[in-house]
């Protein structure tokens, strides 16, 4: 369990704290090793690796930041700098289903405010928050290229257009159903 050492020599900035890893970190470390295998051991791989961690684990924790930094030979601060720059990497509230409602002008004119209100009521959270069960997070986003069909929103990678309160119910029910089916599939 503790015999693994990173392929690259550890930089001075990272003391040998990885020798005693909890299970979660150890598995994250192996996963990162795998991702670097796929994307290459160089700076260009940084964002694809972070994107993958983000999509699998919902967020990139400080262990992952430090470990990726060591493997790619950059400082952890730079990794953090990159994460904080991109809105799809930096959001700090994460649900299994990340809902992003477009707030830009065409959707605004298509009454996005009504949809925003409905989402907050149905989920019981405000924008920037996650439901207590960790199922849904709610965020604003800028134009998602569906301006002719607003109001528009994204649920993870999926796009929904001409959203109405009735459609919101269907979308949320659909998410819950998908989740239950996946759970069943796992157990």
């Amino acid at each position: 369990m503790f015999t693994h050492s990173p392929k690259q020599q550890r930089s001075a900035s990272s003391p040998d704290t990885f020798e005693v890893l909890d299970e979660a970190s150890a598995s994250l470390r192996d996963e990162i090793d795998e991702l670097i295998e796929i994307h290459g051991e160089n700076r260009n791989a940084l964002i694809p690796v972070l994107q993958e961690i983000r999509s699998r684990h919902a967020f990139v924790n400080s262990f992952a930041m430090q470990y990726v930094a060591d493997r790619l030979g950059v400082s952890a601060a730079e990794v953090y700098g990159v994460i904080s720059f991109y809105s799809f990497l930096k959001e700090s509230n994460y649900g299994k289903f990340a809902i992003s409602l477009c707030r830009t002008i065409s959707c605004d004119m298509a009454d996005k405010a009504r949809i925003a209100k409905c989402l907050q009521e149905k989920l019981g959270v405000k924008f920037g928050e996650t439901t207590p069960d960790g199922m849904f997070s709610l965020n604003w986003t800028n134009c998602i290229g569906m301006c002719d069909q607003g109001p528009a929103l994204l649920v993870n990678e999926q796009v929904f257009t001409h959203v109405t309160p009735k459609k919101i119910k269907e979308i949320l029910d659909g998410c819950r159903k998908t989740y239950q089916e996946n759970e069943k599939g796992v157990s």
Partner: protein
Amino acid sequence: MTIRNTITFASIPTDKGLKAALEKEPKSVINDVIESGLRGCGGAGFPTGIKWKFAAKAEGAQKTVICNADEGEPGTFKDRVILAEWPDLVFEGMTIAAYAIGASSGIVYLRAEYAYMRKMLEECLEKRRQAGMLGAKIAGKEDFSFDIHIHMGSGAYVCGEESALIESLEGKRGEPRNRPPFPVEIGYENAPTIVNNVESLAWVSAIFANGSKWFKGAGTKESPGYKLMSISGDVKLPGVYEFPFGTTLSTILEAAGGEDAKAVAVGGASGTLVPPNNFACKICFEDVPTGGSIIVFGKNRNLLDVAENFQEFFADESCGQCTICRLGNVKLLEGIRLMKQGQCTDQHLEDLCSLGASMQIASKCGLGQTSPNVFLSVVKHFRDEIPRHPVAENDDQKTEKAKSSNLFQSVVQLFRTDADTAKNNSGTNKKGVSA
């Protein structure tokens, strides 16, 4: 239904353009593109053939062709439609570009918001490899190998700016570079690189399928050919339309059912607001240019709401490198909010306008340079929309005014300090950590 009229791309057979191009020498491919007069469809309108010529001339082993599919300008969605309907034409265009400049690798920078298209695009690429139109020895040509991979964006409007896009590809924060050097000389991994918009690349395929004379035959003298427009807002038939360059705005509004508009934003948040007395203007680079975004505002819209929405967008999306852009957008936003409350004095309005003018000249990239445009258009063409402070001020109002002009002074001060520091540090590449 998003597609509203006849789009040329629908009539172009797959690979017809690519095969025709591969029969020519790379030099004459570039000449044909120059001959067609095609100008970049991403907004700036730089002649595509000239860009390619620079990249072909530049020395460098690993040249790269990048397709800019970051489409983030508010009100633009034509690239999404092109990628969904005619991905082959885009990949063909990239392949023609690679052949012309001698590149062996291509990257599609696809915005995160379009991730749902990735699988379909990967499949299209794989089909092209199977058919011998991508990979080693394309179309049986011994000495021409080229492949394309897709790189996902992560949600940053500024990464559509070509040098920021390259930074992002290199695993960094998407902060625009100083230019020159331009990417055609020093681009991705320091090698000559061309960055072209999705639509520009699709037109390249169409031009080789139909001939450069055909393309040049349409449009105006300085803006030849056709352009896709994304039309949204208060119109009966929103969607994607194709028009030759030089079509008047009123013709376009008529087609989409938005004739009784109060104003039209041409070019998205970074474009301008056109008032009804100028609806006869022509959409082309010599009159009113656009990357393809047309947002229509009906009679009942409050244009300060529009300016506020756009300024929120820029305050959110500024990369933060330049003080004038980072703080200027916040100050404009605050100013617009004051105006909406009827709290803006004439003096403050004037200050905001001169701040806007400074942003246009002192910002490093197109984002900052264009971010005050819509606000300035509202002031210029729709001044009646701005509820103003009575001229005679009581004491309360004076304090308010003093406060707001202090805000402005603070920006000016910060900007000066920033400019001084920049002067002292010129040559070093400083990067802040938080925007």
